[in-house]
């Protein structure tokens, strides 16, 4: 267990947060069916850094993007979610 620094609330216990999906797994409403299926049903799942969407569910409920390492659990960056955080 570790702490995640919420862009709005500061460092909080990880149990307050929930993981949703990676930023490259968001369905683009303007894209085609194949792209939507790829986004819904596949993941890069790297043994390294990935950009993940998390939510401060049991806190301020805001969404954010974590650049997190999946072996060391290091959190490289936390960004409040917004138009600039999504592809």
């Amino acid at each position, binding site marked *: *267990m570790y702490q995640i620094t919420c862009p709005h609330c500061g460092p909080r216990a*990880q*149990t307050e947060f*929930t*993981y*949703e*999906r990676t930023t490259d797994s968001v369905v683009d409403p303007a894209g085609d069916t194949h792209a939507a*299926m*790829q986004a*819904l*049903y*596949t*993941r*890069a*799942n*790297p*043994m390294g850094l*990935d950009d*993940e969407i*998390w939510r401060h569910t049991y806190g301020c409920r805001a969404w954010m993007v974590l650049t997190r390492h*999946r*072996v*060391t*659990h290091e959190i490289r960056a936390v960004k409040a979610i917004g138009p600039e955080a999504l592809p």
Partner: protein
Amino acid sequence: MKTPYSAFSLLRGALNGQKHWEPAWRDPEPRASYDVIIIGGGGHGLATAYYLAKVHGIRNVAVLEKSWIGGGNVGRNTTLVRSNYRLPQLHNFFEFGLKLWHNLSDDLNYNVMFSPRGAMFLGHNDGDMIKLAERGDAMRCDGIDAELLTPKQIAKIEPLLDLSRGARFPIDGALIQWRAGTARHDAVAWGYARAADALGVDIIQKCEVTGFVKDGNRITGVETTRGRILAGRTGICVAGHSGHVAGLAGLRLPIESQTLQALVTEGVKPMVQSVIMSQSLHFYVSQSDKGGIVMGGDPDNWPSYARRGQPTIKEHAIAQAVTCMPALSRLRMLRTWSGVTDMSFDGSPIIGPSPIDGLYLNAGWCYGGFKATPASGWTYAHTLATGKPHELNAPFSLERFMTGATIDETSVGPFPNHR
């Protein structure tokens, strides 16, 4: 031919100080090429190699393991073996495996300590009982044993469960599969390794695959930490790390890796007779032959390859188990551990050809891979030998996610982190 494990061998050895035993498997140098390479020396990989050699006569086979045999998920599970699934694709597959389990020790000449002591799912309300009855009916329609129990019948098997109406989660009944049970996980890995080796399979440990040898859209071998090895067919069998290894070949799979934890208490006299599970709560408890109470629960619901889990998840599983069986609160925890699991997007495995020629997939076992070991090995061996899936693993293709034919036992949808 290796000396068989038998009372006669033991008696014969008594005359010469038991000096006639050989190592259970060789430690060969990798050859330049093989007919089939299996990446991953876990239970499934070793079982696949064994059935390739035994059933299909393909003995020019290598199993490549990055660390040591039995060090991955085959040594990290809670050793439960059952086939009580609701969906026919799943229960027919696991039932085929359960039949192999019942004869596995004889088949391998290795005591895997399979103990069919019964596995029960608890029901805590009317909705649970309806679901359990439906599941039991579905199983019996396919000739698999299932029996609904009343609380009185449960009390005879598990007197320590809190069956009072005042319980936090009252127990209204259970569905038991008597032929289900537990097995010794290490022995399964070692038994398959020894039997496969005896048939000529090369088990190569400390040999990590670092890339694939590609010729157009065909995989013709692997790059490893011990050099390049060519192969007619290559099978990935690394559940937990499937995303990583398939990624080396350029594939994106419907899999996310998560940590699953388990724990064991100090050894005590027999107090849990069967395997007790609750899907409404999500914990499972059994007692090992050494006396330790083995427990597990939910995976940590976020991606990780770290093999260490959050204490809160363990606490959750323990709290549920203690609520249902209060006597467990008196025990001390001895050990906890974690494994990395392939959480697939419908909760079911993937066994079959990949979009790349010469490359095959065995992945996505979620938290239920151990029980599948013989069936997974048998069907994957068939797939690798013939290039086509066995009828039992045909539904578990990779394409099903794109065609909509998912096999979603819990009807959750494409969410590996909500299972």
